[in-house]
């Protein structure tokens, strides 16, 4: 049986960005429907590392990240769900003089965006984190960064959206969307949605949706490979990363130490992903270099998930360049969990006011139109998530 639905805004993709959008749009008084091929918040949004981190981001992202960070403080109250947000601070370690110089430059630049980072000397790092291996010569601390439980955040946004009256349609894969005279028509199996606005928050699938409207946005599948130990006595008091991003770890309230290790395998078309053994073992080695205390801790699970990654590692956010009333927010390139809460507000602003006070020009989809992004941007690569 086929069904038809008419709403003000149709949202493709019920990750944290899409579900937060549905919440903000309902609060603005518009009707909204979310279509997800699986369960809302079960994609990248539900399986990520859980880092709520501003430090180390591309500077263009800092205004967004700053604004999102303010929402994180009250997120549990907004969602009526404990999201296990822990302001543990995020510490980024330097293992060479070049690393230190990088951290210092970044800290100076970040100050312009109101992000206050503290440089710690070798002794300070050692007294604060005595169990670190001897390779660390300094660090930068972002006291207001932290961590949260990704498994509950996306679904809680979806539940709130539903409570506010949004239509949430799960297990509906969108196979086509087109511009009509009055707006859009979106096909998801036996459901057709007619809407005045279309929001593309389809994650790794976002580039394909953009393509339906003649826009070019290269999005690759990104699969960070993750490991988690059994619960251990509490010792990792801060969320930890390194220059270069190839080691990162945190400890949950329950005691599990979660750490990253390379890249997994994934096939975005069938939404399947797998951690890779060699990557996991490599991640173990690199992490042990920094945290010898983890030797022989038992790893109980490894996993990965699929995020969408752009060539310049920053998302596509903003109005379509070809199609009126189409708005994009995808390709968060491995660090969109922290940004998720603010994406709803920004998309609602773009829909209801046509603009947002937060600077988003660097994220315009047009940057890909001229046939590619200057590779200088790519120099700022930070593989931590």
């Amino acid at each position, binding site marked *: 049986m086929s069904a038809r639905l008419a709403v003000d805004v149709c949202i493709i993709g019920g990750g944290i960005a899409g579900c937060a959008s549905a919440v903000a749009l309902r609060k603005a008084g518009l009707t909204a429907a979310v279509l997800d091929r699986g369960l809302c918040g079960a994609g990248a949004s539900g399986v990520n590392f859980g880092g709520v981190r501003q430090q180390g981001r591309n500077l263009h992202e800092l205004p967004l990240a700053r604004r999102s960070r303010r929402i994180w403080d009250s997120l549990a109250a907004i969602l009526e769900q404990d999201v296990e947000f822990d302001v543990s601070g995020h510490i980024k370690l330097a293992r060479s003089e070049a690393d230190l110089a990088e951290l210092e430059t970044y800290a100076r630049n970040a100050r312009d965006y109101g992000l206050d980072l503290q440089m710690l000397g070798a002794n300070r790092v050692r007294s604060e984190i005595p169990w670190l291996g001897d390779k660390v010569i300094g660090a930068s601390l972002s006291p207001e960064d932290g961590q949260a439980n990704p498994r509950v955040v996306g679904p809680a946004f979806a539940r709130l959206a539903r409570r506010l009256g949004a239509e949430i349609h799960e297990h509906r894969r969108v196979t086509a969307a087109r511009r009509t005279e009055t707006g859009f028509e979106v096909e998801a199996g036996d459901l057709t949605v007619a809407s005045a606005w279309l929001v593309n928050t389809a994650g790794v699938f976002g580039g394909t949706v953009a393509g339906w409207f003649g826009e070019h946005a290269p999005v690759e599948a990104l699969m960070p490979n993750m490991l988690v130990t059994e619960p251990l006595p509490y010792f990792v008091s801060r969320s930890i990363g390194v220059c270069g991003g190839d080691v990162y770890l945190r400890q949950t309230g329950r005691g599990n130490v979660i750490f990253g290790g390379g890249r997994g395998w994934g096939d975005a078309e069938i939404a399947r992903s797998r951690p890779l*053994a060699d990557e996991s*073992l490599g991640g173990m080695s690199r992490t042990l270099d920094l945290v010898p205390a983890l*030797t*022989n801790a*038992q790893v109980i699970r490894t996993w990965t998930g699929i995020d969408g990654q752009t060539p310049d590692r920053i998302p596509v956010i903003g109005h379509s360049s070809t199609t009126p009333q189409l708005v994009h927010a995808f390709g968060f390139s491995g660090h969109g969990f922290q940004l998720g809460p603010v994406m709803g507000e920004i998309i609602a602003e773009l829909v209801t006011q046509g603009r947002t006070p937060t600077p988003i020009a660097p994220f315009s989809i047009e940057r890909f139109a001229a046939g590619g992004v200057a590779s200088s941007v790519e120099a700022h690569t930070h593989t931590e998530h």
Partner: protein
Amino acid sequence: MSDPVIAIVGAGPAGLRAAETLALAGLRPVLFDEAERPGGQIYRQPPPGAERPGAAIYGLEAGKAQAVHAILPTLGERIDHRAGTLVWNVFEGRLDTLRAGAFAHQPFDRLILATGAMDRVIPFPGWTTPGVFTLGGAQIALKAQGVSIGRRVAFVGAGPLLPLVAHQYAKAGAEVVAVLDVTPFGAKLRSAAGMLAQPSTLAKGLYYVARNALGRARRASGVRAIRVEGEGRVAALAWTDHKGAEHRVACDAVGASFGLRSESQLADLAGCTFAFDALTRQWAPVRAPDGRSSREDVFLAGDGAGIGGADVAELQGRRVALTVLQDVGRPVDVAEVARLDSALARQAQFRAALEGAYPYPEHLVAAVADDEILCRCEGVTAGALRDVVRHKGAAEVNRVKAFTRIGMGRCQGRVCGHAAAELVALERGCPVEDAGRLRGQPPVKPIPVLGGFS
């Protein structure tokens, strides 16, 4: 061209017979088992130095045990036996292994999974009290270590292991104080005809009941509710009989479990298609009669892909090896194929009757109280599960896991996953297959954080 690499996981009756068949055909299979000595569950061997006579350990099955144990010594170097080696992952033609604190991997052309089964657990009041074991655990203590789980032992369960383990304990000299079957006796009578058609290992449990070998043990069928009493240590087992009367027996150990569940995580990681088996009420990798899975390079034998018992495991081990031989272009004895196929068909009939004799005790699941621990690795209660089903729209077990941590601990849901699905189904009022199954992730068992890999 060099010989294809055939890897086998599991040196129980299924894996050993598969290895033997391949070796006799001139291939040199690589046989992995995390146990140091071959035999699997039923024919588990005591550790070196603790050997006892076969008849004392395996009872009526001593002859079969001996035959299975003789396979590796007889074939020697023709089978590459990797003892004490955990296979913790499989992906695209490669196994990842751990032996004595060292990681390694093994590429393969064909993989036979013969990973066996483990006890199926349902929580009941007091089930986490020290002194409560699964029936299989109780049997392992006896077979491997020659020790009893207690002095005065009560057994409760649903499945052929119940009378069997009780009998083995009585014979070993333990005081068995109660043998409680939570399924109705009538079901056994109705199934008896089907079972007589094919006597088999698992049926010997019923045989023992008939022989009345349990002395003064209290015995009951159709038990409605059970409860272990004792603070910090088992002190008694209390139960409600089929008429509603209360009973209690003092004891210091309890063996309790409710049928078997396939150890199918490796098949899951290998990417095999699963289907719900209504007979044994569980998801299992789809297996064709010749042992093929849904994947061309993966084959299945024994209890790891549907519960059939030890004799079936041996038959399937032989059968699957012939399929593999055919696939790699080796000559295959067609008469032997026909013989195995008809033996397996007879066993399947018997198997259906046996499952009928021990229907799944749904009443125990319905009785699980909200404050009962369901996932003991993570300390999550049944009430927490019901809450997210009722109030947070969690309709299947993976969502329940994401919200509550059920199945996220050391055992990765091997113990609680089954009961969790049953509880979700009851709460939703849907068939248990609609509650889904926990998706597997490597490692299938915990592995240590070790260095040395770049």
